[in-house]
């Protein structure tokens, strides 16, 4: 206990010693600097930065995120470097160490008291930063108008936690800089060491190279994750690393200070033993934290979540992206759900579709024996999907930066035809980049240091490989024309890349790149003079693996049925290939598609439907028999529809005096009021209709409406001219309509 008594005496005497050095004033000024600049910038750029706000957020939390980065990555570490040097220089310059060592103070108290002066300075800087920030932002919120949806309560809890977290994150850097400043008597050397390490870190950051045990990186991590742990831990794992590193270096630093020289500290057996012991313990702790966490499989497949909403939402669906098959129906009670999914689910990205007044959806990665928890906000018809937790925590946040995670020189080379003369170079570049990307692909970590499960990483590797093989294939196509010699034998390196991918991997079937790759490989051999689609289907039908073949057939068939020009073609397609699908479910789906497309074929009758007009009266399609009908299927929340409707209206207005044709806009909005308000403002040359929920269902199925806007052209007898027109923004749309009208006149 005498150590503590000594310590408070030492600390109080330190405060006398730093009088007139302006140390704490420096801390204070560094703290308020960034908020002042931020305040001024925000004040003048307020109007420019105004964006429509749909999702509620806290005013202070949002702005702090932006201001924190410059504080944490530059000003704060710079302050720490300077203050550590200043505090120790007071004694280096004046022979103070010796003076202190001839006072009744234990060396540990001397050491700890000086460290405390530094840490208190840090706290002053953090508090002045956050405090001045809040005050200035409060001021700003009073001067400027803040949208109502934004929460302007000061989040004290958040700020208190943030203060502690920033302090924890700064501990490691502080002790390292402190020890360097104690051990080296020069004023400038510790500052140079600190400053250049900081610069080095910033430069490496630009290349996206991070070392999480770097004290500067730890500070940056807190800034890039101001809301902290996604799993409700108080600290991020980087902050915990900082604390362990702090304890370790404090102890080792003290032993060094106590023994004065490097030699005495690290060569005398007793000291060396202590130092090594502490270092080993510290490293063990840090590597435990650095080791990425990977979730283990759950014992059931669970999809759960909560929805914060002003509506009562009762149902959601888990849907396969590929077949649009509903895998599970989810009951939602009191806007909460917890469903156990009985069927097997391969690792894929799935849609989770929520039925509210307007439908909204998101995509999640899931597989069998995963437990996934979603956190959703749905206010004012705007969905906001917060962090999805559970066993696929990392997977659901993973965002590869573009196809190649940034610039790919290989991709550039392929597109630049000048490299056609240097195929060797292209091959080498592809290979090197591929190798590099493969090694990097499992490096993703969440803020809490969770990594994706092994199956996901495997999958990503494969997809990366495929992307590179695809660009090789497009290059190969060009080479066939210019330099076919070189393609006689597949280059070794390309062979190696290819060998890591199977052409029958059903886990990748929903991936468009993989699909394209497989198709290319299979049709490459086919040199007959037929179209691509036939070549494809032909190649697929030769596959042995039933599952794979089924899926490929289904997907190709689906798109080729849709794009077939007449009934004969469709018939031929479904007969030849539909029969080859062995999976009964897929087979019947394929036949359904055939039927639907057939129904929508030119000359076939368009199914009648009933909708309500602006006056609330029932209107039927059949009411317009004897006239041409052009339909625009839209909704108020559909962006592309807004782009098309002026064009549609223009054509309608042009033909407003033509009694043979009627233009109508059919809305599938769930909320009739939303539709009414917008429809009322539109041109009267377009008949505005709204489908009730029930009718909308039947309509969508009958007309195979998978996306909007959708344009339908029906002739005088009520038969299809074209069930899926091009968009009116394209000039040809009008041409088609006019041609049809003119041919009638003949």
């Amino acid at each position, binding site marked *: 206990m005498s150590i503590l008594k000594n310590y408070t*005496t*030492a600390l*109080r*005497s330190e405060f*006398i*010693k730093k*009088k*007139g*050095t302006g140390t704490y004033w420096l801390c204070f000024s560094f703290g308020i600097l960034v908020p002042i600049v931020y305040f001024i910038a925000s004040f003048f750029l307020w109007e420019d930065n105004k964006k429509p706000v749909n999702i509620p957020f806290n005013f202070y939390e949002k702005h702090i995120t932006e201001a924190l980065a410059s504080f944490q990555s530059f000003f704060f570490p710079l302050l720490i470097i300077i203050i550590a040097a200043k505090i120790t220089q*007071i004694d280096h*310059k*004046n*022979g*103070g160490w*010796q*003076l202190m*060592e*001839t*006072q*009744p*103070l*234990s*060396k540990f108290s001397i050491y700890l008291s000086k460290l405390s002066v530094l840490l208190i300075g840090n706290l002053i800087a953090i508090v002045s930063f956050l405090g001045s920030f809040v005050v200035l932002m409060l001021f700003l919120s009073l001067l400027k108008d803040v949208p109502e949806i934004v929460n302007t309560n000061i989040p004290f809890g958040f700020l208190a936690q943030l203060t502690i977290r920033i302090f924890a994150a700064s501990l490691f850097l502080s002790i390292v800089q402190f020890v360097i400043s104690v051990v080296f008597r020069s004023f400038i050397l510790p500052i140079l060491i600190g400053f250049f390490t900081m610069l080095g870190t910033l430069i490496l950051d630009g290349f996206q190279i991070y070392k999480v045990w770097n004290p500067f990186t730890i500070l940056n991590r807190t800034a890039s994750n101001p809301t902290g742990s996604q799993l409700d831990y108080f600290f991020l794992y980087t902050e915990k690393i900082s604390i362990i590193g702090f304890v370790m270096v404090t102890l080792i630093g003290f032993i060094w200070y106590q023994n004065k020289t490097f030699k005495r500290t690290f060569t005398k057996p007793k000291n060396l033993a202590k130092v090594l012991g502490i270092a080993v313990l510290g490293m063990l702790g840090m590597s435990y934290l650095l080791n990425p966490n990977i979730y283990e499989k759950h014992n059931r497949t669970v999809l759960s979540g909560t929805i914060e909403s002003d509506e009562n939402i009762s149902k959601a669906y888990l849907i396969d992206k590929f077949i649009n098959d509903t895998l599970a129906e989810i009951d939602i009670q009191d806007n909460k759900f917890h469903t156990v999914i009985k069927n097997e689910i391969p690792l894929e990205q799935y849609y989770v579709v929520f039925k509210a007044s307007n439908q909204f959806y998101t995509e999640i990665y899931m597989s069998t024996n995963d437990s996934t928890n979603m956190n959703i906000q749905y206010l004012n018809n705007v969905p906001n999907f917060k962090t999805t937790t559970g066993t696929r925590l990392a997977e659901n946040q993973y965002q590869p930066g573009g196809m190649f995670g940034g610039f790919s020189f290989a991709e550039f080379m392929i597109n630049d035809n000048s490299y056609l003369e240097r195929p060797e170079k292209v091959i080498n570049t592809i290979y090197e980049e591929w190798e590099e990307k493969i090694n990097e692909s499992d490096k993703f970590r969440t803020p809490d240091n969770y990594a994706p499960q092994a199956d996901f990483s495997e999958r990503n590797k494969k997809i990366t490989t495929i992307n590179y093989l695809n660009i090789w294939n497009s290059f190969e196509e060009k080479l066939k024309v210019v330099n076919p010699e070189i393609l006689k034998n597949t280059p070794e390196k390309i062979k190696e890349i290819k060998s890591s991918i199977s052409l029958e991997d059903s886990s990748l079937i929903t991936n468009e790149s993989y699909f394209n790759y497989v198709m290319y490989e299979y049709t490459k051999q086919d040199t007959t003079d037929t179209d691509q689609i036939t070549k494809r289907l032909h190649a697929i039908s030769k596959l042995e693996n039933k599952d794979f073949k089924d899926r490929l057939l289904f997907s190709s068939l689906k798109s080729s049925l849709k794009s077939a020009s007449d009934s004969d073609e469709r018939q031929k397609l479904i007969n030849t290939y539909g029969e080859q699908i062995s999976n009964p479910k897929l087979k019947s789906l394929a036949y359904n598609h055939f039927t639907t497309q057939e129904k929508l074929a030119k000359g076939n009758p368009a199914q009648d439907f009933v909708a309500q007009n602006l006056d609330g009266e029932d209107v039927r399609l059949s009411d317009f028999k004897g006239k041409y009908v052009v339909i625009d299927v839209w909704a108020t929340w559909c962006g592309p529809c807004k782009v098309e409707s002026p064009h549609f209206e223009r054509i309608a207005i042009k033909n407003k005096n033509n009694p043979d044709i009627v233009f109508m806009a059919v809305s599938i909005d769930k909320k009739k009021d939303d539709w009414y308000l917008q429809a009322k403002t539109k041109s009267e040359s377009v008949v505005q209709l709204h489908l009730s929920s029930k009718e909308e269902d039947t309509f969508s199925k009958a007309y195979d409406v998978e996306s909007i806007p959708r344009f339908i052209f029906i002739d005088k007898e009520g038969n299809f001219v074209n069930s899926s027109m091009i968009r009116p923004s394209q000039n040809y749309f009008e041409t088609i309509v006019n041609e049809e009208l003119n041919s009638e006149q003949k």
Partner: protein
Amino acid sequence: MSEYIIQTKGLDFNFSKSKKAVDNLSLNVPKGSIYGFLGPNGAGKSTTMRLLTGIIPDDSDAIEIFGESLQKQLPEIFNRLGCLVESPALYLHLSGYNNLKYIAKIRKVDTSRIDEMLKIVNLYDDRNRKVKQYSLGMKQRLAIAMALLSSPEILLLDEPVNGLDPNGIIEIRKLLMRINQELGTTIFVSSHLLSEIEKMCTHVGIISKGKLRFEGTMRELSQNFGQCKITISLKNSKEILEKIPAEYNAIEIEAESKISLILSDKEMIPDFTKKLIDFGAEIYEIKIQEGLEEWFMSLTQ
């Protein structure tokens, strides 16, 4: 022995393998003495001081203060021990007053004593000026004030009058002697100035090349070395020899025309020379062989 407040037993220290800075040093400083630690520059005085204050760690545990091992009493011993080692350690950016306040805080001394101390060392009027504006003498005095602040039982001072003008030297001397007499403070002072030691100290220890050459009271010192040995080269040595009174002792015949003898003091040479001339001596040369200063200077060889 408990009457010795500081004792070292065969203290050794070397900075490098080849040269020993302190070699088998056994000091014995009596309680209540003013002990002068004398030696030429580079003899090992500062090193010894630093060992005595624990600034240099003594791994051999050869130092005892207050009758107990120094190592065991660090750092609490500094409540009873004040020191000034090498150049004064002062915070230049603080005022004289604040420097003392700093020490007062650490040693838990009442702040009223600060003013007292400032007056004693004659710095009261300059107490609020920053120390970087002080002259060397003022700095020295302030450092001494800081060492004295907590009225320690032992004062260790390394060359305290270094850089002071004659007035300053006298003042410090008076101060030290006063506190020694009034408070019984044991003062251990190192210096390379023999004259200073002679005027102030009760005991003396002489060090050269790391080894202790002499230790004892001032009286013992002057007895051993206060006497002056001279050699006289003269023509008629035998004749004169018979004439020199018996009171002069240790007369030796060095050679045909050379005799040597010991006088109790260097100051007696002029009188003695006169006497010799009265005896009719024909003197070619009178040379001082050994005196405290000569002996002392020979130490630097």
